[in-house]
Each structure stands twice: as structure tokens, then as C-alpha cells.
């Protein structure tokens, strides 16, 4: 896959290459999650018609999350305190964690002997997962984009940086990028109007906006995957797991701010939708009380959208080993001066280079790194890498000495990173 980005005169079009690469990687991973490998599709239809008819609407739907106003806004230097392709975790107390774990074991054993996987989110943060790290990222990304309570309320109050604060309704109202273009219209036209049951040529638009809604039983349903002919219920979506290459039914359940995603092996369900309905019912019977309890515990400890804000700091913390990141809330990052962000973006570009060089030269050995640079506006842009963890920081008030800046990092490291960045 190749992404071509046109560099405009606009000053906002200063990109970090790695960030763009991550966008490409994300859309690819999501596509594979829903449709399987591109290679397999090409083998099925060497002319490429099949893959095109899937890719086009998929990428258009994906890109529709990026526009700000009428423009397509790819991640720019302003997003340098964000890391695509990572999950954001909820920090919780031991008691809540135990409750969650107890719920997880109920979820995973929901379908009897066949092992299900589960993922739990609270608001837009990951609480727990039994999936492999890669599958976790993909499903987490999709959940935040389309399934979480915020996504369901179509981003009215979006604060997660995965959703850019845009809403699909904005976007549909007209722009060059909307799917009202001639090609897409053609594709959709044929599929949308085709009668139910005759959906051989139908293209499921997995990322289509505004198609998920919450059913009476708390499970989220969508008609994106069509309607089951026999029972006239919406067909349950399926996804492919990267690790096990197994097709799974995707059953999201929502209770208040808590989203549970249950993945049931397709192979374990013999009678299709009926079987899925049975497992769902089992989940309600076995887990309802626990779900209630977990929701209550997590709500109690919930610090709000700005919970992870540390005053005086604008930071991004990435744990590359675990694919986890945490950052200052977007609302706080916007208070930074453009110069500061530009400086950090530049710094990150350099660090990315250094990282890839180290990776090439010496696989397996981790490189420790510490860079602090002074921006034009006298802000400090700082990067520290140690033991696979990365910390990026902008300190605008620390306009004094390097020692001051270094101290500030040390303090932050000790208080919020268990001293991971303060080894000497």
C-alpha cells in the first residue's frame, strides 16, 4: 500500500513521516481485520475488481474521520503528542482490577468450552483484553471509532484523539471527499438497493458511520453486515484475528460507559444467529451482576476526561513494548504555542530516525536516549527513551535552564512513571 500526500502551502501541512506511516498501517490493519488479507482477495479475483470495490469505500469511510470542517486533516505536527497505533489504558485500583478480572473470566467462558476473547472499555479507555497485542490495537481502534458510548452518540462530545472531534453529519453535508462522488455512488447504489437476500455482490462497509445502535438488551447491533434472512435479525459482524487467523463473531455490549466486546469463534457456533443469540443470553444471565459492579467501581474511580492531565506538563508517554500510550488531553495540548509543537514534531522525527537506525544496526538491544532541545519560543522539547519506554514532553514555563527542565522530567518520571525515566 502506498499513501501519497500532497504537500500544500498550508503551514499546517508539516507532517511527521512516522505518523503518516501509522495512518496507513492502521487503515490496512483494520481492513485486514474485517476482510482478511488483501493478497487472498487478489488471488480470488486477479483483475482487482473485488479488492477495489472493498478498499475504496473502506478507505473513504476511514478518511471521513479525519476532516476538520471541509478539509481533510491528516495528522500534522499538531498531533506530535499523540501516538497512533497504541491503546490508551484506564488506570484503576486493585479492587476494581480484581472485579474486572472476575468479569473477564465469566466473559471468556460464556460460550461453554470454546474459548471466547473479550475486551472491556470504559469510556474510550481500555480496561482489559484477552486478545493478542496486535488484535487488541485493531479492535480497540475500531471500538473507539464506532462502538464506544462517545462514538455512538456520534462524537457530540468527543475528546479521544482517535476521533478527531469531527462528526459524520458534518462531513456528509458536503465536501469533495464525501462518498457522494461519482465512483462511490455507483458502488453504493448497486449494493444499497439490492434486495435483502441477494447480497452476493454486496460490499459491507465496516467503517460506515452511524450504523451502530444499542438494542434493548444492551447489545449493540448494526445492519452493516446485512440482515439474517431466516430470523430477520441483523447479522452479527465477523472479524479475523491476526494471531490465530480465526473468524470471530463480534458482539459488543454496552452498559452506561462500559463497553464489553465479546468475540466468539465462528467455528464454535453451529446454527448461526440463533447460536450467537444463545451465547448473548448466557452472557446476560451470567455476567449482568458483575457488569453492574464493575461499572460502579470504575465510575467511582473515574477522574473524567482530563484525569491524566498533569498541570504544567504537556506530555506523551509511549510504552513501545506494550503498545500503550498516555498523553495530555487534546484540549490541554492545544494551549501550546505553535513553535513548541513544531519543535517537538521535529525532535520526534529525529528520534524516529534514530530508533529505526538502532533497530537496523542492533536488533534486540534497546537503545537509551535523551534529547532536550530549546525551541524558538524558549520552550523545552524533550525526548527520553529508556527500556522500551518513550517520554516526549513540552515544557513552556521551564524557560530557565536545562537543569530546570531535566529536574521537571525527573519529577514527572518519579511521580507518574514509577521512576522509569530517572535511572541516574
Amino acid at each position, binding site marked *: 500500500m502506498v499513501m501519497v500526500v500532497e504537500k500544500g502551502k498550508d503551514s499546517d501541512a508539516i507532517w511527521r513521516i512516522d505518523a503518516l506511516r501509522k495512518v496507513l498501517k492502521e487503515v490496512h490493519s483494520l481492513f485486514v481485520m474485517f476482510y482478511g488479507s488483501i493478497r487472498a482477495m487478489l488471488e480470488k479475483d486477479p483483475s482487482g475488481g473485488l479488492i477495489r470495490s472493498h478498499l475504496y469505500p473502506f478507505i473513504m469511510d476511514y478518511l471521513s474521520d479525519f476532516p476538520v470542517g471541509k478539509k481533510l486533516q491528516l495528522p500534522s505536527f499538531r498531533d506530535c503528542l499523540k501516538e497512533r497505533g497504541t491503546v490508551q489504558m484506564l488506570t484503576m485500583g*486493585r479492587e476494581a482490577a480484581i*472485579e474486572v478480572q472476575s468479569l473477564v473470566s465469566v466473559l471468556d467462558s460464556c460460550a461453554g468450552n470454546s474459548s471466547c476473547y473479550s475486551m472491556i472499555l470504559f469510556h474510550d479507555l481500555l480496561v482489559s483484553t484477552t486478545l493478542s497485542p496486535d488484535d487488541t490495537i485493531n479492535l480497540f481502534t475500531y471500538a473507539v471509532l464506532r462502538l464506544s458510548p462517545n462514538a455512538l452518540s456520534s462524537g457530540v462530545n468527543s475528546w479521544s484523539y482517535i476521533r478527531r472531534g469531527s462528526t459524520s453529519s458534518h462531513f456528509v453535508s458536503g465536501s469533495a471527499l464525501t462518498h457522494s462522488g461519482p465512483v462511490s455512488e455507483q458502488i453504493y447504489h448497486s449494493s444499497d438497493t439490492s434486495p435483502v437476500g441477494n447480497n452476493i455482490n454486496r460490499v459491507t462497509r465496516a467503517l460506515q458511520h452511524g450504523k451502530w445502535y444499542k438494542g434493548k438488551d444492551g447489545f449493540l447491533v448494526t445492519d452493516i453486515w446485512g440482515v439474517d434472512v431466516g430470523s430477520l435479525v441483523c447479522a452479527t459482524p465477523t472479524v479475523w484475528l491476526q494471531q490465530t487467523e480465526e473468524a470471530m463473531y463480534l458482539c459488543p455490549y454496552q452498559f452506561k460507559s462500559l463497553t464489553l466486546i465479546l468475540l466468539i469463534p465462528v467455528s464454535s457456533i453451529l446454527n448461526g444467529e440463533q447460536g450467537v443469540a444463545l451465547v448473548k443470553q448466557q452472557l446476560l444471565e451470567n455476567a449482568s451482576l458483575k457488569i453492574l459492579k464493575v461499572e460502579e467501581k470504575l465510575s467511582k474511580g473515574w477522574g473524567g476526561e482530563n484525569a491524566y492531565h498533569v498541570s504544567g506538563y504537556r506530555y506523551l508517554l509511549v510504552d513501545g513494548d506494550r503498545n500503550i500510550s498516555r498523553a495530555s488531553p487534546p484540549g490541554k495540548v492545544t494551549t501550546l504555542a505553535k513553535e513548541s509543537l513544531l519543535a517537538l514534531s521535529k525532535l520526534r522525527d529525529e528520534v524516529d530516525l534514530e530508533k529505526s537506525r538502532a533497530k537496523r544496526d542492533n536488533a534486540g538491544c534497546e537503545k537509551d536516549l535523551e534529547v532536550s532541545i530549546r525551541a524558538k519560543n524558549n520552550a523545552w522539547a524533550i525526548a527520553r527513551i529508556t527500556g522500551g519506554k518513550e517520554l516526549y514532553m513540552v515544557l513552556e514555563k521551564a524557560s530557565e535552564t536545562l537543569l530546570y527542565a531535566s529536574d521537571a522530567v525527573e519529577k514527572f518520571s518519579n511521580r507518574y512513571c514509577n521512576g522509569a525515566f530517572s535511572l541516574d
Partner: protein
Amino acid sequence: MSGKASSSSQPSIGLSGSGALSHIYIQYPPLRCSIPESRGLHYDDGTKLLIPSTSNQIFSWKTVPFNPLATSTSDSIPEGPILSIRFSLDTKLIAIQRSSSEIQFWIRETSEAFSHRCRSDSENILGFFWTDCPLCDFVVVKNSGLDLFAYDSVAKSLDLVEMRKLNVCWYVYTHESRLVLLASGMQCRTFTGFQLSSAGIVRLPKFDMAMAKPEANSKPVLAAEDVYIVTVYGRIYCLQVDRVAMLLHSYRFYRDAVVQQGSLPIYSRKIAVSVVDNVLLVHQIDAKVVILYDIFADSRAPISAPLPLQSRGFPRSYSSSSRSSGKDGECSEVNNKIDHEGIIYGDNWTFIVPDLICDAIAASSSETPSVLEFLQRRKLEAIKAKQLCLGIARTVILERRPVSMVSKAIDVLVSSYSLSLKTGSYFKGIKTESTSSGVAKTSVARSSTDVSTSRIDGTSIRHESTAGVDSEYPSRASTFSASESEENASSAPLRTDSRDLQLGGGKVDRVNLTGAHSSGPTDNPVFVNISEQQDSELTSPAISPDEMYKFVFAAVEEEMVGDPSYLVSIIVEFLCSTNMEKIKVHPNLYVLAIQLLARNERYAELESFVTNKILEPSKEVALQLLESGRQNIQTRKLGLEMLRQLSLHHDYVSLLVQDGRYNEALRYARKYQVTTVRPALFLQAACSSNNSQHLAAVLRFFSDFIPDFRTTSDFTTYYGILNEMNTSVAATSF
């Protein structure tokens, strides 16, 4: 179940099949008291003596503590009719009812006698009893009311203290409840009660018992044998048989009220009621079965299916009468009929106020959590209840019962332990033991010296959680303190090896437990050998988290096959319960959880277990993470990180060096002044990197860091190596 079948059974009766299964056993051998020319057999519940009598002699057997070989004491008394006998509570006096108007008192020490007679001829003595009420010592129940007397030991006479006038048809009294119920009225269903407790005399409000009418205008009369006073969990109840309605009504007594509690159905024209270790036993005599109720819970459902009463280990032999009681389960029935010991519920059985022990057989009951709850309430034979609980816990896990059910069961055990901590009953046994064996014990205790001393200091509770199983299973009884070698011998297997397992059904009651679970791994039960010595020490069946780990999780883990995630779920449930009760968990349990997760390669989840502190940080946990991290670098990192956060500097630095990260290790060593790691380790590591600059840097570091480093052999050795390296580098570069 007929008497015949039972009489032919062998000692292994409990496991020979469902036909021989029983909840309640009469202890065998019985107490045999064959007295030639015996005229009557009495039981005095105040002193718990069994009293056969002849015309001029009284024999008495102690029934508590039960010993089938107990010998009797005998008193020769003046000849005459004996209607009833009761010993004074200090057993110095014997009160003998000679007629409906005369009670004779026999002073045993001096062999003197004096008599008490009713004042008027119209008065009839219905009965009498001794009491420990501060107001009086002796109470006579007459048809005209109660007379309360104090015994004057100097004048050797009874002084009337108080009279309570009322018409009495009959009465019931138990010493255990100190409650006397006086029946009056046409149907004998109006009751007045007095409790003669050590706090004084409490008069209970008058109340009527319910009686169904067989037909209009007929009024059945309540008989004394249809009313039972029972004490369960310290509460006093009265049970009344309604023969017409076929119900057993229960009433609970409060200080100022009597409240009807509900009714239990009965299935036999004739029933008897006894209470064994707070469990209500309703003997359905016609049906020859016992139904067990635990009336602590509000439920009216029986604990278990009705099963026959059996005589445990009953061989074919006969004696004049049996008094059943003893160590493993029993009921207190007296079989007056000579030659028919093998017959259960013989026509002539008299049920005497019971106060003995029941071996509740839990296996046939299906509701595990409630069974555990029930077992945890056992006070007598606590060690057995405890072992049963441990056995049940193991079994439900091995059988992979639903997590929700096991979770409830664990909840029961944990909250019971928590309660026992609060009430202190968990440590009672330990404390009394430590005082009894005193200083000698401290001096002889080997591996658990600190525990023993702390116990004597009275700080046992704090130590308990860390001291491990040693302190909870005080293995040394006082008798052992005298001899050190003996003490060591007896306690060693217990303390050092919890896997010293006793396989098979060495213990009769253990076999009974598993008898109904005739499937799967329980056939060959793992049972931890805990010597009888401790049994007597233990007063609570509560199970500490350490014991849960050792005797449940660790034991089960060894036997479990297949997917370990089930056990992980169970451990999580256990942590849930302990967290709720704020009880600390043995770090080894965390270690076990890590092993299980790693075995499943669930490293990502393991990570969330650690980062969320579900597995609390400790050195043991960190080391296990490092161990499991051999297969997974992230897990290893977690272990390292934990060592660092626990400030275990030495271990941390050593591990960094091991990983070849000696630069980092040196920085860390300097920052935290870790001087315990030998420089040679660093030098060795730097040397093996074959980089002279690194080696030089390390040498330089230690020269600065350790004052006399330049004089050590390490320095000279590695300095030499460095020089060699440099020359060889120089040579090759040429």
C-alpha cells in the same frame, strides 16, 4: 434401613454403598453399663451423668468427655423406691425422688441423708432440678407451682427462697437452656416459662401453642413428650409436635416475647428431636430416618436428604444397654432394651436431651456454599469441620464446578475466617496452647521460634499473616514440651512438608465425606496429615489464606490437568473475597497465578495482573516474573521493574549485570550506593563484551567508587586483562 442390615455391616459401612450411607452415626462402641438387678436408668442433664440404679445403689457414668471404657462410681443409698435422680451440679449431693411428695437428699461425703416433703397432701411433685441461678440451688416443680430453695450446707437443709403459685399439668426443663416451661390449661397448651439463669430469674410471657383440631369440638391435649426445648447457636427454641397437623412448630424465646418461627413438616407419627452441634435432628421414628435442619438460616429446607441413623462400626455383640456418644458423630439415645443394640429406633428408645456431637456428612448435600457455611459454624470438632471444608474446596475445584459456585463457596470460607479474626476465635486454640506449654515451648521450638515467642508476647495476630502455617497449626501439644526430641519428631513432618499426604481413607470420617462423591479424582483423596494432637487445640474451623494456599490451591494445582485458566479464575475469585475482607494473601498464591498464566502464555494478561497490582508486588512475585520471563522478555522486564520499585537494589543491580547492562547497573549502583554487588561481576561482564573501552570504564568506575579498589586482586587481574586487550588491539591494528 432396617436394624438387621445395620447389624450386619462392617466398620466400613460408610462407604459400602448408598444403602449404607448415613448422616448421623451412633458412636460405637457404646458405653456399656450393665448392672445386675438394675431397676431403672436415669440421665441427669445437669451433670451429664448416666445413672442406673438398683434398690439401694446408684451408679453413675460420666458421658462427657465420652469414653466407652469409662468406669462408674457408685453410691450406696438407703433402700427405697426411686422415681427420679439428679446430682447437684457439684455432684456433692444426690436428690432422689422417693414418692410424689418426698425427695430425699444424700450427701455423698458424709453419707448423710435428709428429706424434703410437700407441705400439703394435695400437692404433687412433678419433678425437680438443680440450678446455678444465684438466688437458689434447687427447684421443685409441683402441680401447684414452683418452689425455689437454697441449700444450706451447714444446717444440711433446704431453705425456701421463693414460691411461684400456678397450676401446672406438666413441665419440661433442660439444664442447657436453664428454661422451665410449665404447661397449664385444659389442653395443656398454655405455657409459662421461667429462665433460671446465672443472671437471675426471668419470667417469660405466657403463651399458647398452636394445635390443630382433628374435628369440631374435639380438643386434643398436648403431652409433655411432644414439647422439646432446644438450644441452637445459643438461641433457645421450643419445638412442639402437632400430631393432628403433622407439623413441628417452632417458637423462639426472647426475653420479653415468644415468637412462633414457623413449622417443619413431619413424616412420622412418632418423632424425636435432638440437637447435635447446633444442628437440629428430627428423628422420624416410624420412617426410621433422620432429617437435619440448620435453623440458623431462615430456610426451612433440610440440610440434606433424609437418611437413616446408623451405628458406626457396629459389630455383632450385645449388651444390656447402650449409651451412644463420643467422638465422631452421635446422638444421644438410650436403648433400654437388652439384647437389641443393633436395632435402630427400637420401640423402647428414650431420647434424652442431647448435647453431643454430630459428624455432618456433607457429601450428599449438593449446595456446596451452604454446606461450607454450615460447617464453618461448627464449634465442636472444629478440626474435622475444617478438614471437611478444605476437602470440599479441593473437590469443587478439581471437578471444575462453575466458577460462580466456587466463588460463593470461597466467599463463605473467607468471610468466616474474617469473622473468626474479629471474634478472636481463630487464635483461641493457639493461645491456650501457648499458655499451657509455656516457656518450655519457646525453648524447644526450632523453626518457628519467632512465632512461639510472639505468641507469648500476645502479638500473635500480627505475626499470624507472615508466620505461615506453623503458627496456625500449633503442632506441639503441651505434653510434648517436656521432651525436645519427641517434640521434634512429632512436629517435623507437619511443618516441613505439607505434602506429607495421607492417601486413601485412613480416617473414617474422611471416607464418609467422599463416599457419595464416587467419581473422579476424589476417589483417591489427598488428605493432609494433621495429627490428632492439634485437634483439641483448634476451636474454630476457619481457614486462613495461607491454609487456603497450601491445602487447596497448591494441592489442587498438582492434581489438575488441562487448561489452567480455570484455576486462575478461581484464584481471582479468591482474591476478590480476600480483598473484600481486607485479608492479606500469601505471596506464593501470586507466584502460582504467574506460573499458571505463563503456562498458558497469557503474558499480556499477566502484565495487566501485575500492573494493576492484582498480584501485589513482593520479592517472591518479582523473582517468579523473572523466572517466567525466560520465555517472554516483557515479563522479565516486569520482574526487574518490580525489584527496582521494591528497592531491592542488590538483586536489581545483579540482574542488570546478568543481562549485560552493566553501564546501567553501574549508574544505578552509584545512585543508590549499592556496594554489595561484587565488582568482579561487572568486570567479568565488561570483559566478556571484549570491548577494552568498556572494561576500562568499569575499572575506572570502581577505582572511584570503592576507596581501596586499586589494591584488590580484582583490579590487578582485570587491569592485566585490559593491558593485554590493548596490546592485542594495537597489534592487530598494525
